[in-house]
């Protein structure tokens, strides 16, 4: 058992930290968020150049072959920088789906482009009625010639507007909430029958509503086996949760450090706020939440590849619960301890708080995962 970073991981960490320092000052990020696409293509190209897009992809397809812990190192620093580029959707999720379920042809065609920054992917799974159940799928794909015709609605699809292809879950058989009968499709973003409504999100990202009205795809657009999408989603979403836990840890650490610093400099009643015992203990509680979140982040990234599906699912859900609880406490208290200043858009505190709030929602909030854990 060993919880230390390898030399390569430490170098990666340093490299991302440099990037954040140079490119992700709060004002720079604010401009990206307000820009047309919502992030920087130049940053994306730089990420390709630095090998980060290739990090988790297999060596035989132009990747570096890193594991969950490598992605964790990167995502934690992305969390510290509040990075808005679509790394999670494109690389962790999109790449994850291709690796776990892609055919040889799909891998050969798409993975090298992904690694090179020439292709972006998004993942459309949520529906109006589905809440956090990945298998609650009403969107339908019907056999049509050699291919399929897909119709239905998908909600809150992150970074859909800038994706080249969207991975869509649709039902090829079974009832609305059956695990069996869900199939994943690689759908071109600009294909006919697909209508997108794009919008910003509260945490400075971009997402879209998709309406599909008889979107036609060929048979080779199927990702994984027909009807076998549930297991594939379970696997890849597990990896995404492990990665987002790392992002959350990065956010929390920044908030904890910033708040501690603020309390030491803000003077009220003639002394720094850091001299008030109630605030000292609150900070200790925030610190302990950060340490606990980090522990579970390590745990899930070490276990997300576990062969036992129950142990893997328990690890994923337990981590998501802890991250949700810790993120809520650290986020809320950072604002509270900053007082009025914490309420302003001007300080970065609120931005981290909003991101942490939305991370709890991603792939199921703490209530969802607590129930899933209990049911396992």
């Amino acid at each position, binding site marked *: 058992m060993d919880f230390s970073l390898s030399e390569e991981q430490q170098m990666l960490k340093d490299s991302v930290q440099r990037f954040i320092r140079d490119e992700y000052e709060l004002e720079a990020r604010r401009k990206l968020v307000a820009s047309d696409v919502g992030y920087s293509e130049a940053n994306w190209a730089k990420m390709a150049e630095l090998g980060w897009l290739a990090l988790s992809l297999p060596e035989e397809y132009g990747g570096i072959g890193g594991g969950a812990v490598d992605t964790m190192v990167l995502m934690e620093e992305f969390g510290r920088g509040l990075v808005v580029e679509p790394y999670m959707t494109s690389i962790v999720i999109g790449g994850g789906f291709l690796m776990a379920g892609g055919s040889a042809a799909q891998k050969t065609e798409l993975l090298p482009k992904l690694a090179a920054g020439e292709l972006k992917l998004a993942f459309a799974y949520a529906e109006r009625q589905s809440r956090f159940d990945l298998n609650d799928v009403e969107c339908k794909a019907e056999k049509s010639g050699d291919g399929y015709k897909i119709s239905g609605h998908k909600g809150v699809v992150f970074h859909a507007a800038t994706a080249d292809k969207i991975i869509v879950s649709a039902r090829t058989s079974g009832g609305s909430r059956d695990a069996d009968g869900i199939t994943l499709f690689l759908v071109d973003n600009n294909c006919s029958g697909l209508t997108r409504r794009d919008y910003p999100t*509260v945490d400075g990202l971009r997402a879209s509503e998709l309406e599909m009205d008889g979107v036609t795809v060929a048979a080779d657009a199927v990702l994984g086996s027909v009807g076998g999408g549930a297991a594939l989603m379970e696997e890849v979403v597990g990896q995404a949760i492990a990665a987002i836990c790392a992002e959350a840890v990065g956010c929390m650490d920044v908030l904890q450090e910033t708040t501690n610093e603020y309390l030491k400099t803000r003077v009220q009643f003639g002394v720094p706020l850091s001299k008030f015992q109630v605030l000292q203990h609150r900070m200790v509680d925030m610190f302990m939440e950060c340490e606990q979140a980090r522990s579970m982040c390590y745990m899930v990234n070490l276990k997300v590849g576990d062969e036992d599906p129950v142990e893997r699912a328990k690890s994923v859900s337990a981590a998501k619960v802890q991250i949700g609880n810790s993120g809520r406490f650290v986020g809320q208290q950072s604002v509270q301890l900053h007082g009025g200043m914490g309420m302003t858009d*001007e300080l970065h505190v609120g931005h981290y708080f909003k991101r942490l709030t939305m991370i709890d*929602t991603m792939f199921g909030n703490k209530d969802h995962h607590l129930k899933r854990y209990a049911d396992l």
Partner: protein
Amino acid sequence: MDMEFRAEDLAFQAEVRQFIGENLPLDLQEKVARGLHLEKDDYVLWQQKLNQRGWFAPHWPVDLGGVEWTPTQHFLFQNEQVEANCPPIMPFGVRMVAPVIFTYGSAEQKQRFLPSILDSTAWWCQGYSEPGSGSDLASLQTKAVREGDHYIVNGTKTWTTLAQHADWIFCLVRTSSDSKPQEGISFLLIDMTTPGIDVTPIITIDGSHEVNSVFFTDVRVPVENLIGEENKGWTYAKFLLLFERSNSLTGSLKQQLHRLRSVAGQERSGGLSLMADPAFAAQLADYEVQLRTYEFLELRTLGNSQPGAEASYLKIIGTDLQQLASELTLQAVAYYGNPYIHDALVHGYNEPAVGPEYAAPSAPQYFNYRKTAIYAGSNEIQRNILSKAVLGM
């Protein structure tokens, strides 16, 4: 001990209901119900309707425009307002500066300021906090120096709610630095059109423009705008803070609960209503129990016309519940807490909603409500007050 409403109470309740039914425009009612941003005109319209009926300032002395209501009537009045989605009363004039004016002001000041507060032709804002003086209000640095018949005011006020609409600001200013910080403070009324006043918006984390910084540069304020005695402003400030904190929250908490139940009733989980989800149902029940507790805590203090320490614990518990309700509502809408289209929060937005219409205000309200535990003396400050005033620690 009893909980009965007497026949005259029930008659009063019916009268209030009828008045609201006949006077509250439907589109305004809907705006409130949906949690959309209200414009200045929305507030003024309803306040003027109430004033026409003589119900805008019921807690004022009768000779100045108040009504002799029993505590129960006050309670019923406020409850009905909220149940019917009336716009809230802006407190800065009628509930905050007015009691200071009619308690500590001169006859001239009463005559000059109270009528325009009553008919809502003057909009007031509050100049208390400063960039360096948050919890430690008494450390404020905005200076007022006497020069003949005027004070010359220099300094900065911040977190000034809706100052962008204000005609007047009531300010705490430092008129002496000789002794204890509390002893050199004065209470000034300042015309917002006076040269040298500059209002700058502060955008909050929910993306809204509710608060402002107000900069004063050599602002000349006539001495007749001083309330009471020079250097005694802290006394009036504390008097006012008690009113600010003792704002009844039961009504607005119930409104939040209605909205939460309505949202949860429309959300689906596992093919059923979210209300059928045991974890959500338990949290909702827990919230309802806490709200009922808060309601009875408030009812128990109804009889006390002069709010004391209970103002502090009602503030702590009430704002905790405001935050909790907003959090549960955000949880209820799941992924649809994410979309943020600023214009969708304004009445008259013509695009179709992203996801369910009720979802849009959820995240902004959750973020915005973090302020409730900070403003009017943070909940930490309230606990300091209680430990001293009630527990003698």
